[in-house]
């Protein structure tokens, strides 16, 4: 089969004219990276079985969470991270369970 796929930029849109570059908030932000602590080692990028994250274009900068909706919330990115507190897993609001002090029940 003759290859006709040349590169992404040519294929990305039919026409870039008239498009606004406006981002949209995702349904959830599962992986929160602390850019102060992150060393950009990409351990999280490499361990994620769903492949949510991609390396930053800038070497040493935090990876980009490119496909947040696909997160399975397993937490392996946190386990693998060599810097304590550089990465957090955060359940979406709809998945946060409630607890209460037992002594308050009556």
């Amino acid at each position: 089969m003759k290859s006709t796929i040349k590169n992404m930029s040519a294929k990305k849109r039919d026409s870039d004219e008239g498009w606004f570059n406006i981002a949209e908030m995702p349904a959830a932000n599962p992986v929160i990276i602390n850019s102060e602590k992150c060393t950009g080692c990409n351990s999280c990028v490499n361990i994620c079985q769903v492949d949510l994250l991609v390396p930053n274009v800038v070497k040493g900068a935090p990876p980009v969470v490119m496909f947040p909706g696909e997160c399975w919330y397993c937490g392996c990115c946190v386990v693998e991270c060599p810097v304590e507190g550089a990465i957090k897993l955060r359940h979406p609001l709809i998945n946060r369970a409630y607890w209460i002090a037992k002594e308050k029940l009556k």
Partner: protein
Amino acid sequence: MAIRDWPYQLEWEKEETIETDVLVLGGGIAGCMAAIAAAQSGQKVILVEKGATKRSGAGGSGCDHWESAATNPCSKITPEELTVAMLDDNDGFNNGISHYIECREGYDRLLDIEKMGGKIRDTGDEFKGAAFRDEKTRLLFAYDYLNRYTLRVWGTTFKPAMYNELKRLGVKIIDRVMVTSLLTRSGPAGNRIIGATGIHSRTGRFYIFKAKASIMCMSRPSRIWLFSASLPGLCEFRPTQCVGDGHAMGWRAGAEFTMMEKSVGAEFSASGRSYPPYGAGNNHNTWYGATLIDSTGREIPYADRDGNIIDNISGRFKPSSGQKFFLKGGSVDNPKYQYRGPETLPFSEMIAKGYKLPFYTDLSGLPESERRVIWGMMVGEEGKTKIPVYKNYTEAGFDPEKHVLQCYGTGWTSAQFLPDERQLFGLPGGFLNDWDLSTNLEGLFVAGDSLYASNCYGHAAATGHYAGRHAAEYSSDREKMEPDKKQVMAEKERIYSPVHNKPSTSIGWKELNMGISKIMKNYCGEVKHDELLKIGLEQLAEYENKIKSETYAHNPHELVRLLEVFDILTVSEIIIHSCLRRKTSSKPLCFIKYNSPEESGTGKLITIRQEDNIITTRELNVDFFGDLSENYEKHNKKYVSEKKGFG
């Protein structure tokens, strides 16, 4: 600043051909153990995995208990007793071969994993003196403390240990490659399997694998009825990318399946419906034995199978009087009287008695070791609890001695679903296997969640190793074959065609998945009507013949997601074909055919396969596998004699 379109080097359609003796398809628990066994047998092994083998698969991030380790030194029941109970509890609709392998070899695999560096016993004496601990072996048990056949394990250590072992044995691991099809001798379905094709999810590169033997170790299907476009990763219990690709490519290659008409009312996940598994109040699996209370602090009692209230905590972990052992675990939903263990009284009954909602899980009154083994070890080692539940709740201030965790559903499910929302859960359908764990296709072996009536970690590990040994034996006196060029070209055409469409006018993977799941809810819901099933099939055919050609993917990652949905479409078709072929309702298959009486007497398995788009089915006795120990020993002479040698 330059805007980059994709972070990885693109290699669309560029071919790479790799040859091996044994090809393992999928790097979860079953795949890793299969590759390890085949490599130990001296074969050259390649393992292909869509994610990252070190943590991939349903058990990659952890596992808190290992079921059916009937040969561990403390077990009071035999592999035969346990397998027969598992079969009987499902009126025979269970995989006698694979579960006997699980019961007979599961503990051997635990010992293997321990040698690789996994933690299977309380070496730090954290639970010294606890009722669930054997002081000599330091093994910890769950559920039935008298019969001791289910082990509490530190499963977060397992997958990295297997990964290191694979590397030590020289297995070539190819991560980030989705296997897309099986290659057959000269091309047609039904012929010997001689390899596979794949696509790299970051670069788009095309792979051709040539192998003497292949082992199917992929997941059970998912996202058939349940889909959320905003949070697709939370649609189902198993990982996002585990959608049953293996079932779909097996079907296209002519493999024979059974029990594919079985689905259960949804219990888990589906973004928005339930809470994180084992992250809300419940007293099942990970949380078994925990106390439940109502909103006034009144305890909800446990009762034995006869409804007698159990008034001491130790009674929650014992069989009833006159009962030898009870069954509990991942695939035991509503056991028969004979196997039923202690349970809290049903929610509905408690509400009728004046107990006030909501209910809560309360660990504060448990013996210290029981509290610590649930909150700390089990919640901490289970698949998705270490970080999102144990770490995050602890950091947010949850204290198991003070706080109680709210229950949302009626038991462990923490959610309410509509009747037409279904899932492949609790021993679902899959590849039919023989005593070599071979499929009907020569050269294709099968393990783990690809098998019909699969369930847990131990099942995946035990069947993986077993399939690895048998595939290695087959491979050792076979020759590799050249793939059929036309078959390879057709596959390339199939997988890359969406990239040629226009994004602004095309359909994406999420829209297609939503469409499929709506068809399945509408036409293949809880009650099966033949007329509706036929319309569902017509609509799926339209997706297959027309809509697929209108899809688009921006990059290799998105293309892999789209190819997964193509596989979900194929699996949906297998399910409807199977539903049409079962004429009567069947309780063990959770199958309701409109206006049909329930099957009486011993049911039969219906198998299904296709070749040249012609579908054939046959009936099979549920106990087609014959005597368990006799057949096992006949097919495993070398393994059995080696074990005796060590004994």
